[in-house]
């Protein structure tokens, strides 16, 4: 998967590139709008991450230019400004998602993966697995090592999300928004408690432990946990 990043802030650009490269993407980085447009028009990218405030050509103009050139890859905007008008403008111009700085890198990663997955949606699996954990989406049943596990509806949804995105670190904000539709940062430890309870049900008394807390970032479900 090849990504284009256009970001003029040197540190931000470098760390975004490093983080995304380490997450397994091929990344090109442009430092201003015109270079970004040139790369976007000539290269073949699966997704573009654009800063709004850019020298020589701002993010909106860059996006418009890309669309004029017939480039239809998903575009994610990064901005320091959280204004409703900005958001509306970006979405009107055909941006696919929007992140306000400062953002958690895990959140960016999760959104990039969501955007890339969109459109190329595979056949919905009916059964999801991790190690000896099984989730039967059709019958809404979970089991581990052949033993049935009783889950509430929300716990089931949470486990499904973690399984669907195995190996990805999911930030708390993403979990709150995907499972409970809470699209704002909450200062409570609700997610922590919910994950802890889920973990007690599927990991207590089993090996290997599947759900792991990545401190400062979020939660990940991995079958081959280190």
């Amino acid at each position: 998967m090849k990504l284009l990043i256009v970001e003029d802030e040197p540190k931000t650009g470098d760390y975004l590139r490093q983080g995304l490269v380490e997450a397994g993407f091929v990344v090109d980085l442009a430092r201003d709008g015109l270079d970004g447009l040139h790369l976007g028009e000539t290269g073949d990218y699966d997704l573009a991450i654009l800063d709004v405030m850019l020298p020589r050509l701002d993010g909106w103009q860059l996006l418009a230019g890309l669309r004029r050139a017939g480039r239809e890859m998903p575009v994610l905007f990064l901005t320091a400004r959280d204004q409703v008008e900005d958001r509306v403008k970006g979405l009107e111009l055909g941006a696919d998602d929007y992140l306000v700085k400062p953002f958690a890198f895990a959140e960016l990663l999760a959104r990039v993966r969501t955007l890339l997955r969109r459109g190329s949606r595979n056949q919905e699996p009916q059964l999801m697995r991790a190690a000896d954990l099984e989730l039967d989406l059709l019958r809404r049943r979970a089991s581990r090592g052949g033993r049935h596990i009783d889950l509430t509806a929300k716990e089931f949804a949470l486990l499904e999300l973690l399984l669907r995105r195995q190996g990805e670190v999911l930030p708390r904000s993403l979990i709150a928004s995907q499972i409970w539709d809470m699209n704002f940062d909450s200062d409570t430890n609700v997610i922590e408690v919910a994950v802890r309870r889920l973990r007690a049900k599927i990991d207590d008394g089993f090996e290997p432990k599947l759900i792991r807390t990545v401190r400062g970032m979020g939660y990940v479900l991995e079958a081959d946990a280190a």
Partner: protein
Amino acid sequence: MSRRTSITARLTLLFAAGSTAVLLALGLLIGNAVEQHFIEQDMEVLTGKTDLAAHLLEQLRSPADLSALPRQLNDSLVGHHGLAVVVQDADGNRVFATPHAPFPDTLLKPAGAGSKPQSWKQAGQPWRGIATLLPTANRDLPPMLVAVAVDISHHQHFMDSFRRTLWLFVAIAAVLLGFLGWVAVRRGLAPLQAMRRGAAGVTANRLDYRLSLDAVPVELAELAETLNEMLARLEGSFQRLKDFSSDLAHELRTPISNLMTQTQVALTRVRSADEYREVLASNAEEYERLARMIGDMLFLAQADNGLVVPKREPVDLAAQVRELFDFFDALAEEKGLHLSLTGSGQVSGDKLMLRRALANLISNAIRHSPRGGSIQVRIDRSGGETTLAIENSGEPIPPQHLPRIFDRFYRADPARHRNDEGAGLGLAITRSIIRAHGGEIGVRSVAGGVCFELRMT
């Protein structure tokens, strides 16, 4: 030159022009009256002499008497300095003329005769005269033309000097009145100057200045009052801003000092990868908290600038509360809290914002409830207004804290550790959202607990 006009200059000019016009009119009136008076005086003399001549002519019975006429006329005109008389017959022959007879030809033609007086100048001297056709006693003789004129140079002199004096007076009076007007306007506008000076002294540090209403004339009192109200509003906003920045600095100092110390201690010697990971993870948590705080504060800053409700739609409050109960379920269960909801109601507003406001209230209630306590949400509708009350069991809030509980960064218990609380912005955000929707929110202590109540339409 600036296009702005000065009130002083305008009023002064207006005043001067007005008074000059009045004085000019008055001067013209007086001048005319005096001149009219002179004309009447002259006419009296002229008609008197004409009557005299008429009397003499009436006694002319034969052309022989005609020779006596000049002597008779001379006798009766003796002592009249500056008087000219001409008597001529129908053929234009002069029967009599004073030594000096400066009559214009038009007057001496029979057609010129009439009682209308005429004035003219002859050799630099002004004259006024009349000509009359007078019958004689002898019916065979044609009427004689008698022209009488007086030298009016002394009248003219008087009028000239009178006019000069008058114009001089008008000019001086206009200047004086203009100056007087200027002084009056300056004095009248002096309170404005005082206001200007006062306003010039207003700075961010001296917003407590107020215009004194007693020293201001009634016309300006309203303006002064409005300005004072504006200053009061500015002062209030500025004070809030100041409090806010100092709160902000204070709230940022603690986490940043933690970050700095922790990172610098970690860097003092070589450590294991696990230890580095631990430091970075701890930092990441701290950063996340900072980012959240900044996001919340930006939201509040926007709210202070008149937050607009982006999208209004009917929002079912009971449904929102149920979803939030679901969200907080794990947390409440862990604390053994009992959540209950009664009633229902609909309001018009932005679903996401209202959910955020309610979430803050519920998480606040959960945080302050003791283990095994309860949280009740009651929704009521009455008279187009919807009230939502959230009551949690627990320690009542001391009364002195109640009014400030919605202030940002305010914590009833300063000793409370900030990690188990939010940044202290949740309730402030809730109030901003409710106010943006035109609602109001309040808090009170109830028996064995605290009750937040919000009203919306």
